[in-house]
């Protein structure tokens, strides 16, 4: 089971660095917002910083989806088509939810 160990290492790296990046974006956004809130041009400074924090939140939502995508690609490359199919199904369910779940307003 050498291949399983490789996938585990890749997933661990993706999740670890992904979480760090997302947390860093949120932390940075808020740190800047807190500093900005003491400056005179307060409202002008806060908005872009909140946007940095929002990027962090989007990263957190994308991270598990990327994790499933990585598993899908790995299983396809390993020609393990049963598990490629299963991972593909999980991806499809998530994407279906996004497309059907958003009301067209």
């Amino acid at each position, binding site marked *: 089971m050498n291949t399983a160990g490789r996938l585990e290492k890749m*997933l661990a790296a993706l999740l670890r660095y992904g979480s760090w990046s997302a947390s860093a974006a949120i932390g940075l956004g808020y740190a800047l917002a807190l500093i900005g809130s003491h400056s005179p041009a307060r409202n002008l400074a806060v908005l872009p910083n909140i946007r940095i924090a929002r990027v962090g939140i989007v990263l957190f939502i994308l*991270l598990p989806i990327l994790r499933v995508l990585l598993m899908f690609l790995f299983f396809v490359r390993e020609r393990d088509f049963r598990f490629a199919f299963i991972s593909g199904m999980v991806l499809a369910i998530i994407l279906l939810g996004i497309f059907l779940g958003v*009301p067209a307003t």
Partner: protein
Amino acid sequence: MAGGFSLWLFAVSMAASALGGMLGMAGGIFIVPILTIFGHIEIHTAIGASIISVIACSCGGAAPFLKNRLTNIRLAIVLEIATTTGALTGVVLAGILPVSYLYFIFAAILFISAHQMLARRRAPVLASALSDASHSSDALGLNSSYPDRELGREVTYRVDRVALGMVFMYGAGLISALLGIGSGVLKIPAMDTAMRLPIKVSSATSNFMIGVTAAASAAIYFMRGGIVTEVAGPVAFGSVLGAIVGARMLLIVSNDKLRLLFVVILVVLGVQMLLIVFGVHLIEGSL
């Protein structure tokens, strides 16, 4: 939004997550009650913020489990078909159910968690003589092994009753999306009892699945504008730091006293969530 409120959100999330982390579970279950009872935040906004912190704690804590080969990734991806389908059902229900029902269901989950915390987890009877070959899990190659440090050897295990496990997981995914929690409270018994996994494997695999399950609902809530950055940002950041602190303190604090404190908090929050349904506020926030 005022900086003071952001700091309050950050602090309570960090405390909740650290408290959960000390007992080796996610603190997500505290976030929604604290935000609604003390922060007077609308429950859907609180759920949106909580679900992001659930993803953060799952992803942030996954690496050590994966490196120690405790996570059964193949089993996880199979069960995720059920958890993500459940999550979509939960999103639909969250849009339909009146707010009072959400409080009611949340209170019920808090009481179940308190009960589970008192009962403790017992090691499942490992009926895993690997000779028995006529199981669906064998066909999928889900049986596996993990290195047990205490025993100092490789432990092989069999995955039982995957179909029953999937039914539980559908329910866990639904509750996760509906209430913005990781619902380990439903995943762990399914894996311990129904599928008879070793405790370490079921904890690691459950943690691994929680992120994907939560992302399925979080993506939809986000697209609908249900995730408010001003609330979700500090909550997620606080939870990540709290989880790190909690894991460190795991070794210092007495487990039994902590367990009791945990049960008391769960029951108090549960009672207050129930009372909100009837318009009674016993414990009032200072903010």
